[in-house]
């Protein structure tokens, strides 16, 4: 058990001949509190797996340090970091039984036979593997194999953190949900820090207490699922999380007022700056039809059952909005308004603080 801290981590893979050095991780500072359930969310190629491998010691960062409880572990070998990892594709030792698989990490650490058995049985019970305990691991289905990979981490009493690298990739869709709730339940049971890497927002938001969003080699926001939804710190977060993602519209700063789509919005940047170019971000959930709003053209409406997604257009920009089941969509001359409490301003991609002003 340990608190893990990444300090000024930068990493680049050796560049091919004639290419410039590319940073897979730009600069990461991140603390993982002991016992937390974290999700590391981001699109493919954003540096998630690199970050994971740096924590586990499979990679040594080009710059920066990894601290476990304030102890510098940057140069410490994987085995001495006491971490566990579940990979994208199930890794089991084919020739061993499920029992032998689970006992393997303990045996490698020189634990007694008599101590191993109760431990393995306890974990097998937790993972619902008791029935197949003495079967060959190779014969199990993909989800069974992933459980074994996880089990090999759980059996070890000294594990600092269990990391999951997109563990549900090869699992059947109907089993994904089951395994995910199992993971959450296990986290509550054992209380080990877990870091769950994924590019799927549903997986991240349902599993984690804290979500770390990565984009192009840096951490853009750390927060609870609600914070990510309500206050995306970066346009990428707004766009990536939520379905459909946040509407982003160009916006001008006129007399300290944000002007968007030809009218003043009623919010402004709190700290005055010179810059005139902004983006306005508003989630489809916070756009509504209103008789005094901005006139738009209705493009189309998708009925998704519990709600409808309407697509409207004005000044050459498309805006998506979520309309509840019961609400009507005006047939003629629709006009829309933004919920100002949930409307954000972004400069160069990053959110700026706003205050309400008289339009």
């Amino acid at each position, binding site marked *: 058990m340990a608190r893990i801290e990444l300090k000024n981590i930068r990493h680049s893979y050796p560049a091919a001949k004639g290419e410039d050095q590319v940073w897979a991780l730009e600069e990461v500072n991140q603390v993982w509190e002991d016992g937390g359930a974290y999700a590391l969310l981001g699109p493919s190629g954003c540096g998630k797996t690199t970050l994971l491998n740096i924590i586990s010691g499979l990679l040594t960062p080009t710059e920066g340090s990894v601290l476990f409880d304030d102890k510098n572990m940057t140069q410490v070998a994987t085995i001495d970091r006491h971490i566990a*990892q579940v990979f994208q594709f199930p890794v089991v*030792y084919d020739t061993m039984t499920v029992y032998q698989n689970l006992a393997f990490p303990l045996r490698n650490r020189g634990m007694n036979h008599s101590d191993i058995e109760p431990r393995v049985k306890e974990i097998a019970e937790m993972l619902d593997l008791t029935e197949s305990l003495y079967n060959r691991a190779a014969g199990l289905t993909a989800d069974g194999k992933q459980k074994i990979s996880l089990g090999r981490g759980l059996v070890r009493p000294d594990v600092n953190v269990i990391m999951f690298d997109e563990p549900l990739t090869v699992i059947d869709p109907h089993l994904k949900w089951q395994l995910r709730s199992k993971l959450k339940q296990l986290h509550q049971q054992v209380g080990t820090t877990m870091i769950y890497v994924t590019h799927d927002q549903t997986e991240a938001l349902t599993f984690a207490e804290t979500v770390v969003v990565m984009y192009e080699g840096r951490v853009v926001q750390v927060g609870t699922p609600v914070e990510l939804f309500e206050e995306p710190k970066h346009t990428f977060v707004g766009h990536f999380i939520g379905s459909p993602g946040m509407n982003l519209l160009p916006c001008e700063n006129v007399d300290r007022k944000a002007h968007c789509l030809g009218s003043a919005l009623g919010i402004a940047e709190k700290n005055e700056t010179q810059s005139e170019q902004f983006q306005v971000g508003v989630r489809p959930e916070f756009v509504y039809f209103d008789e005094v709003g901005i006139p738009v053209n209705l493009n189309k409406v998708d009925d998704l059952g519990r709600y409808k997604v309407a697509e409207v257009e004005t000044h050459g920009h498309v805006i998506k909005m979520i309309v509840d089941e019961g609400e009507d969509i005006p047939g003629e001359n629709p006009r829309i308004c933004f919920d100002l409490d949930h409307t954000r301003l972004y400069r160069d991609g990053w959110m700026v603080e706003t205050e309400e002003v008289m339009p």
Partner: protein
Amino acid sequence: MNKISNQRAWWLVVPVVVLVAFNALIPLMTVVNYSVQETFGNNLFFWHGVGWFEQVLTSERFHASLFRQLAFTGMILIIEVPLGIAVALCMPRKGPWVSVCLVLMALPLLIPWNVVGAMWNIFALPDIGLLGRMINGLGIDYNFTQQPVAAWSTTVLMDVWHWTSLVVLLTYAGLCSIPDAYYQAARIDGASSWSVFRFIQLPKLKRVLTIAVLLRFMDSFMIYTEPFVLTGGGPGNTTTFLSIDLVKIALGQFDLGPAAAMSLIYFLVVLLVCWVFYTAMMRNEEQ
């Protein structure tokens, strides 16, 4: 992959069947024909039944060469397979040296077999060969043209030189296809390098190793040219393996009947071993 049933696919196979059948069936028929007949020259043949088969199967000469053959094949398998695995494990996995290693290692495989024999002959001769000089220089009396033990070891060494690379290449290809995650998981589980070999690499190599053993068994069982050029089967009969003996009988003594019977028995032995091996492998794979 589930395949579609389509009888017209036969048309695609016809050219192969015709060519191989021309080369395999007609000669095989000829062999069968000879094996049951007796001739006194002048193209006069008489029915001889299974007489030749009985003669071959009971002849001490056949037993001796079959025994030599089995001993040889066993020996080279015991040396080449572990050595090949060891070298493959030591080869670099990436970088510019990979190509260099692969090209140099594949070199012996592409040398005509009699050149291999000739090369080893002049390499091992005690008077002019580098190897012969070196061994004699160490104070060991070595002359493979006269000493049975020396002849055997030289033949085995030559085969190891010639064919270990095949095992290396197959194993290397097998090793390269193991995903990195397995090695990473093993590091996290704290496995020793022996455990990595025993529980990850060896199980994943099972298939290529089966193929390697099968190929080495087949080819070493058919070996003719290299030992023939190196030792000519001698000294005496000490390195007369099945093929060499067969050619001696068929072309040297022109005993067509016994040679044909021996050919068939020989072929059947190879076929039987391969079939047993093949079915065992398939059953293993299904499990």
